[in-house]
């Protein structure tokens, strides 16, 4: 991992930029309904000269990922790619070469049975194969239309409900009645087992590929609504838009859009269940008013119902969980440094600045207070003074909207500022803790394992999130509570 760190530090931001663009292209190519199954009982209709069948035909479409589909008809499977049209409500499916021939044969056989006489396969043309999403998004219609010689025509069309793909994570079974879906817990345990090799608290380079595969598979199989999937993809696209933003106003507008999207994610009860469960399994102890027995966080962190602001010393790390969410945020959304005189040194959307302590005491906010266990208070204060001298307290250093660029000195985001102060003392607070990555990935990322791996490279080493600081073994969080 150390080698990787050196490599990333040598790089300019451009490689990350390129990587982000690649990632964005991948995200954008994902269509609306990836990861879903639509099962219908289709009505079969033919030309007037043929018999009209009376039985419904079972037909199933699986939208496997951002572009691949699988059609099951008469126990046969056909595959191909799809694109979206008309405000992402209609998917146009194109069979691949092998499936096209097989599908034509199937149509010719059906038509021959109903119309009498053989139908030449090469006279069959698939003129339409579409999936239409109805208003509301939970139901859809599959239409297959084929034309044949002699102006004959055969169509199959039916409406059904979208559902998860086979193999979706079962969020309903909780055999041990601990309030956590068993299959989700197993998935997290699989990821934990991978991370346990090497340094057990963080992802080592050798673990990353396997870890990403497990998390990516788990994320892909979560039975989330199509709207949730759409929002997740939009959030990632917006996050990519933040790449290279130099105009603060534009960056803030994008962040506001992301914030609205993040809030809407919680409308999906299944995602909310996943997030709450992950909070309980991996988040700060007591975050939901209870201690997770045996959890690593519980073992390390005292839990207080009220935030112990009276223990604050200059240089202490402060973390905040507010209503604001960023794609790379799981639990804590903001970080700052207590600067004494009842002020906090922090970076916000309009730059690096001092803010009153009162902003951190607003009702309902969750706050964590921590102190370095690697450096003395005097050392941290000296580093804090150095940072104030270098970056100012008057917003002269702008906010860094490009997350995977923690090495930047010309623009700085909140947790980057905290990280830099302690990095100046030789203490790296970027824990790269597997729990943060797992939580963050499962909240927002619906990608193939390859996509997760690419994302990992973009944010794992070159970025530092408030949650990563929370998981750092170099900070003792002496108080976590709710105002």
């Amino acid at each position, binding site marked *: 991992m150390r080698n990787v760190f050196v490599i990333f530090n040598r790089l300019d931001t451009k490689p990350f930029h390129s990587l982000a663009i690649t990632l964005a292209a991948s995200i954008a190519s994902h269509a609306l309904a990836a990861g879903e199954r639509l099962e219908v009982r289709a009505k079969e209709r033919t030309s007037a000269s043929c018999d009209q069948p009376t039985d419904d035909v079972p037909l199933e479409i699986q939208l496997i990922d951002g572009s691949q589909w699988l059609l099951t008809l008469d126990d046969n499977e056909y595959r191909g790619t799809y694109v979206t049209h008309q405000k992402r409500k209609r998917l146009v499916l194109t069979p691949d070469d092998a499936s096209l021939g097989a599908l034509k044969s199937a149509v010719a056989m059906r038509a021959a049975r109903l119309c009498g006489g053989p139908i030449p396969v090469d006279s069959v043309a698939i003129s339409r194969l579409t999936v239409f999403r109805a208003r509301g998004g939970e139901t859809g219609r599959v239409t297959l239309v084929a034309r044949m010689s002699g102006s004959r025509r055969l169509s199959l069309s039916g409406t059904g409900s979208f559902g998860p793909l086979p193999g979706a994570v079962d969020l309903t079974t909780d055999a041990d009645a601990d309030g956590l879906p068993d299959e989700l817990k197993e998935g997290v345990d699989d990821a934990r087992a991978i991370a346990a090799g090497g340094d057990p608290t963080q992802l080592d380079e050798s673990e990353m590929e396997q870890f990403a595969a497990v998390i990516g598979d788990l994320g892909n199989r979560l039975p989330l609504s199509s709207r949730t999937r759409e929002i997740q993809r939009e959030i990632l696209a917006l996050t990519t838009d933040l790449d290279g933003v130099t105009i603060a106003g534009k960056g803030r507008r994008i962040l506001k859009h992301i914030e609205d999207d993040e809030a809407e994610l919680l409308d999906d009860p299944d995602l909310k269940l996943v997030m709450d469960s992950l909070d309980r399994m991996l988040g700060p102890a007591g975050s939901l008013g209870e201690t997770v027995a045996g959890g690593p966080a519980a073992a390390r962190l005292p839990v207080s119902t009220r935030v112990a602001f009276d223990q604050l010393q200059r240089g202490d790390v402060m973390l905040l969980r507010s209503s*604001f969410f960023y794609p790379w945020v799981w639990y804590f959304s903001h970080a700052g440094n207590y600067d004494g005189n009842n002020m906090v040194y922090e970076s916000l959307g309009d730059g690096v600045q001092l*803010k009153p302590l009162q902003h951190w005491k607003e009702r309902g906010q969750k706050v964590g207070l921590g102190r370095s266990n690697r450096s003395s208070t005097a050392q941290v204060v000296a580093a804090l003074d150095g940072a104030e001298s270098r970056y100012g307290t*008057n917003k002269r250093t702008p906010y860094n909207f490009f997350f995977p660029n923690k090495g930047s000195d010309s623009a700085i985001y909140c947790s980057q500022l905290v990280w830099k102060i302690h990095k100046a003392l030789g203490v790296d607070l970027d824990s790269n803790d597997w729990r943060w990555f797992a939580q963050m990935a499962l909240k927002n990322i619906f990608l193939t394992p390859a996509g997760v791996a690419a994302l990992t490279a973009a944010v794992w080493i070159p970025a530092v999130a408030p949650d990563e600081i929370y998981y750092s073994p170099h900070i003792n969080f002496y108080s976590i509570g709710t105002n």
Partner: protein
Amino acid sequence: MWRAVVPTLLVAAISCLVFSGGELQAESCRAHSLYVLSVADGAGRYGRSTLSVVDVPSWRLTETISLLPRTARSLAIDPQGRPWVSYAGRHEQIDDRVQVITEAGAPLTMLRSCTNPEAGIAFAAGRAFIACVQNGLGGRLDVLDANTFARLDTIPVPPPAGGAYYLTAVAASETRVVLAGMTKGPDPKRRYAAITTLDPARLSVTWQSDPIADMDVWSIVPYGDDFLLANVASGESHEAQKRADVLRLRPTNTLDRMAVASSPLWSAVADDVLYLYHNPSWNSVSTTPTRALSAYHLIKRTVTRWPLPDGFDAGGIAVVGNKIVLASSAPGHERQSGIYAFDIRDKLLIDPIRLPGAEKVAPGRL
């Protein structure tokens, strides 16, 4: 960040409390209405501000209008009775908007001001003075014609010797505009504030104090030729003989220290009585839940104190008739967000008008 911007002339006009025989008594006149600024809508969704009107005689909500879907930070009533609302967002947000509402409760205009106008708005000499945090190193005061809303000037407010200057309160009279703000000082365990005055006609800074230790002012009210500054940091004073619960800024810019009760946060003046809401944990490392109200007779120098329930956090204060009105979105254990009134005669909190996110309150015209 919260501050009470109390239009003192209006308060004086509608407040009919008098001291008689050492007791506070109410006279017959009352304001017809109170404006209440909430940072949540009726469904309790925060970040969607609303402005409500309370009919004082019947003590009922008569109207609630939706404001911007952002967190409003201050409420002030201009001499024409129009509410002005400034926006500064929540912690991570930035804003520069000021909304003016008609006295009848209809949106009148949206103004763009300096950055984060969260220190409040004051009115004098036909002008509106909008106090902005700006970059935190120094503040800014936008001066508008209160009738045409035309911007007359933007005045930079320089930091004192301590460096940072985070504006927290503003008030104005015909002769002075007074600003208070947090600043830095040598002892990181103490709070420091500095006072700045400006000439409202010439629109220039006329005086600025050095950083004053154990001082933190979020509410200023004019009183005659003076200004009264509530010092919420007084409870942490390291020097008992210099403790100042309220500072009285004289026309010569000297500061008289007044002992009332520790840690006053919000203030209002009516008939020579200074009413104070006390919260020693405001902007403090202290987490003590003690809250209180007090009344200080500015001529007789008598003090009356009333304890409030523990943890009763109020965002603003107004005085109407025999009631001290508090807006509170977080009134403590098992109490609902709303508009509370403390009856001075009965020494009781009367049943609140429930209003999610209630934060600021200001009396309308008679």
